Each structure stands twice: as C-alpha cells, then as structure tokens.
C-alpha cells in the first residue's frame, strides 16, 4: 500500500514536470506523412441509442477515407443497432457491418473484436466502443506513434461527454481525468507500463495476429492485451492530445456492474500475468514493478474492509495473544483514510492541468466512489475464488447500458 501511495505522488510530479517541459518546447511535431491503411473496429451489442453518434463521428474523421475501413460488429443485437449501422454503410463505402446472430454472438467484447479482426484489412487496427465520439483528427494523432517500430500499440485520452448530467457522471469524469491526464501520461513519460484501455487505441495488425487477438476468457481483455504486448517486447504509447468523448455510466447500479467487471477481469489478469512479468527478460526493473502494481491494484480495496473489521474487534474486545498479529492490519486502516488522499491529489493536479478550477470543489466526494469500490472489489474477488474452486465459468459479460443522453452535449 505504501508502494501505491508513493506511486501516486511520483506520477503526479512526473506529469507536472512533463507538462512544464512541453510548455517550454515551442512546437510539438508529428509526422503527418505517415498514413497507413487503418481498420476501426466498433463492437456493438444493443447500442441503438449511441451507434449513430459514433458512426457520424467516423464520417467526420479527417483521415483519408481511401485508407480507412470502419467495421461495426453488430453482436447479436435485439434492437435497431444493425439497421442503423447498415444505413451508414449504404451511404459510406468504407463502413462495413458484420451481423452476428443470437447464439453465435453476445459473448462479450473480446469475442466480437476477434470477429472484426478477421475482416480487417488495415495495417493498424483501432477499436472504439459504440458510446464514444472521437475528435476528427484523432487517427492522424494516434497513427503517428507507429513510426517507431518498437511501438506495438497506442492509447488516446478518454473524456466524459455527459459530465454535467448528475453526481455519478461528474465523479466518473474526475476519475477519468486522474486516470488518463495523470496516470497514463506519467506512465508514458516515465517509460512504465502504459495501459491500453480497451477503446480509443490501436495495435499493429501483425502484432495483434501474432498474439492471437483478444483473449475471450478474460473479462478485462484490454489489460490482458496490454501485458501480452509488453511481454512480447513492444511498447504502448499514450497520446494525450488524441481525445475522444465517452458516455459515462449514469447511476450507481451501472457503475457497480462496470467496475465489478473491471475488478474481476483485472484480478484474472493478475493471476495470469504476475509471474510472467517477474520472469520476463523484455521488461526492465521499473516496468516489472509498475506492472505488478498495476495488475494487483484491485486487490487493495479488499484489504480495507478486512482491516476495518479487525480494528473494531481489537478495540472492543480483549483478544487472545495470537490475535495480536492482526494489529499489523491497523496501518491498512489508517492508509484507507489518509493514504487515499494521494489519488485525490492526483485528480486535483489533472483538473488543474485541464484548467478546470471549479471542478476541484467536487474532489472530496470521490471518497464515496472509493468506499463504493470496496464491496465491488471484495465481491469480485470472492466470486472469482469461488468460481475457481468450483471450476465454473465466471466470464459473464454484464453489459453497461448506454442511454444516448450524451448526444445533447455534442457541439457541431
């Protein structure tokens, strides 16, 4: 936990340092001449309220359309997702729709992306979620990083579109600012493990094929792929200027579903990759350290309720001698109140760098999001362990519902 505390402060300082250096640099150059053919995969399961928005965004991209292929994977939708996508495909020859029937589809995002990958013809494979809305020159910005042969994948920044909607969307927006503007930027600047976030990112097709695409047995297919890319000896770059809007979850129930899936998937990745990361000859010491911290981050909230329970028991009872060993958990309790101000500081710096002075005022409310994550992660770990013991499949993809309420915030 102390390692996480230190990491938060190191990341924050690294981003402040990086930003001040960038301000001093007169011009940032990007190689615009490099424009390889790209394929953009958009998996969509019952996304009729948002699919039109992202396809509209795709038509506005400034990347040469003759070098661009957009593939919508209509993943066994029971609504009008397929019909809406077909409408765009008829009027734009670079848009293609793959329809998956009930039974063969609806098995999760990784499965849909693998189907899309088989049809993709581009050298670079991008993926965008259906509830996203990209800025028009995002592909140019992301593609430029692939001029470096060591770069296997690239990640852009995610910005919450429906932020003013309610408390949940506001808190998610703050988390995103901390996660991308600070965490991802710091990892990139310090040469650590930059995480592919599952969307607003792309891969070299050759690398993706050599890795056999997305692992359908893992709920956090993005984190899994991140580590497979690094273990294969490639890097992932983060491009803060390449921004894309997302529609954040709008209520605590959807927040639970989404974070539960992330937590469980991340824990699966921790079991799968921790040892490989330690043994890898392709990773430097600092990458190994950051990789292990990243893989195990969702276990931390589980320690918090444990330490609270033990703390209360110790306070009100006269425990036997052997029980005194649990006094060691008291620092965890203390950390959960004090140490967690470090990520709040991180979010604060991200908000400052974005020039959003008034958004600071909401930062203390993040404590509620953190507390909410405690039962989420605890349940995720319990379910994962039970399913491992019983040998059951625990990979049910509980889809996040997108309402399309973010449409009203788009300024054309």
């Amino acid at each position, binding site marked *: 936990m102390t390692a996480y505390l230190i990491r938060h402060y190191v990341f924050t300082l690294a981003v402040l340092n990086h930003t001040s250096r960038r301000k001093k640099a007169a011009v940032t150059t990007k190689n615009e001449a490099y424009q390889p053919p790209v394929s953009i995969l958009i998996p969509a399961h019952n996304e009729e309220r948002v699919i039109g928005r992202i396809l509209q965004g795709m038509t506005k991209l400034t990347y040469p359309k003759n070098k661009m292929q957009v593939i919508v994977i209509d993943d066994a939708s029971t609504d009008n997702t397929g019909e809406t996508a077909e409408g765009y495909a008829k009027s734009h020859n670079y848009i293609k729709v793959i329809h998956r029937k009930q039974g063969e589809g609806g098995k999760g995002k990784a499965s849909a992306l693998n189907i899309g990958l088989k049809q993709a013809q581009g050298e670079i494979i991008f993926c965008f979620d259906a509830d996203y809305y990209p800025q028009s020159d995002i592909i140019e*910005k992301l593609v430029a990083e692939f001029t470096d042969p060591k770069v296997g994948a690239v990640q852009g920044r995610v910005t919450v579109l429906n932020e003013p909607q309610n408390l949940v969307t506001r808190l998610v927006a703050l988390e995103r600012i901390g996660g991308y503007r600070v965490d991802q930027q710091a990892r990139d600047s310090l040469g650590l493990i930059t995480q592919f976030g599952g969307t607003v990112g792309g891969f070299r097709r050759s690398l993706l094929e050599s890795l056999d695409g997305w692992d359908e047995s893992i709920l956090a297919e993005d984190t899994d792929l991140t580590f497979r890319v690094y273990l294969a000896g490639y890097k992932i770059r983060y491009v803060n200027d390449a921004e894309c809007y997302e529609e954040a979850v709008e209520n605590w129930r959807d927040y639970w579903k989404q974070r539960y899936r992330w937590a469980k998937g991340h824990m699966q990745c921790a079991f799968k990759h921790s040892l490989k990361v330690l043994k890898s000859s392709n990773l430097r010491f600092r990458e190994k350290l950051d990789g292990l911290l990243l893989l195990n981050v969702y276990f931390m909230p589980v320690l918090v309720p444990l330490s609270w329970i033990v703390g209360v028991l110790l306070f009100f009872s006269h425990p036997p001698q052997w029980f005194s060993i649990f006094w060691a958990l008291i620092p965890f309790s203390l950390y959960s109140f004090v140490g967690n101000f470090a990520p709040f500081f991180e979010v604060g710096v991200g908000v400052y760098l974005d020039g959003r002075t008034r958004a600071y005022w*909401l930062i203390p*409310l993040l404590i509620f999001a953190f507390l909410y994550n405690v039962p989420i992660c605890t349940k995720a770990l319990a379910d994962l362990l039970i399913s491992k013991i019983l040998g059951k499949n625990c990979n049910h993809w509980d889809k996040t519902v997108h309402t399309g309420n973010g449409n009203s915030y788009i300024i054309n």
Partner: protein
Amino acid sequence: MRMVPNPMTFIVLFLGVSSFILIMLLPAFLELKKPRDAGPRTIMNNIVTIPQLPTIMEDEKIVLDQALRQKIASIIAFLPNLEA
C-alpha cells in the same frame, strides 16, 4: 489494565469528525447545487501539427528531403526581395 474511554471523549470525537466531514464536503455540495464548472471538457479538433522534418544523416551532413526543399523554396518565394 484496560483503559475505559471517557464518554466525553466519544462526544468530542463524534462532533470533531462530523464537523471535519461537513467542512470538507461543503464546497462539493455548493458546486452540486449551483454548478459553475464549464464541463464537459471541450476537446480540440484539428490541432495544427507541423510535418516532421524528414532528415537523413549522411556523413555528418543533414540532407533534406526533396519535397521539403521545394516546400521551403515556395515559402521563401513569398518573402519580399530585399535586394530589389
């Protein structure tokens, strides 16, 4: 011997913690009641990027790409002729 906490300690502790939480959360409640933040963040489209100079190092000499040479020549052609 176990120390029995004074009931007053609990009251002071409770009031102290409550006040701290209230003070800490007050700005957030004010912002929620009357939002002044300009979110969502407006993402910038078409940020101007300058083409990277495609330079090749040959025997310590910088050789510029032919296309770039022509581009530079066309820019210079706009400049006033100082000799005239």
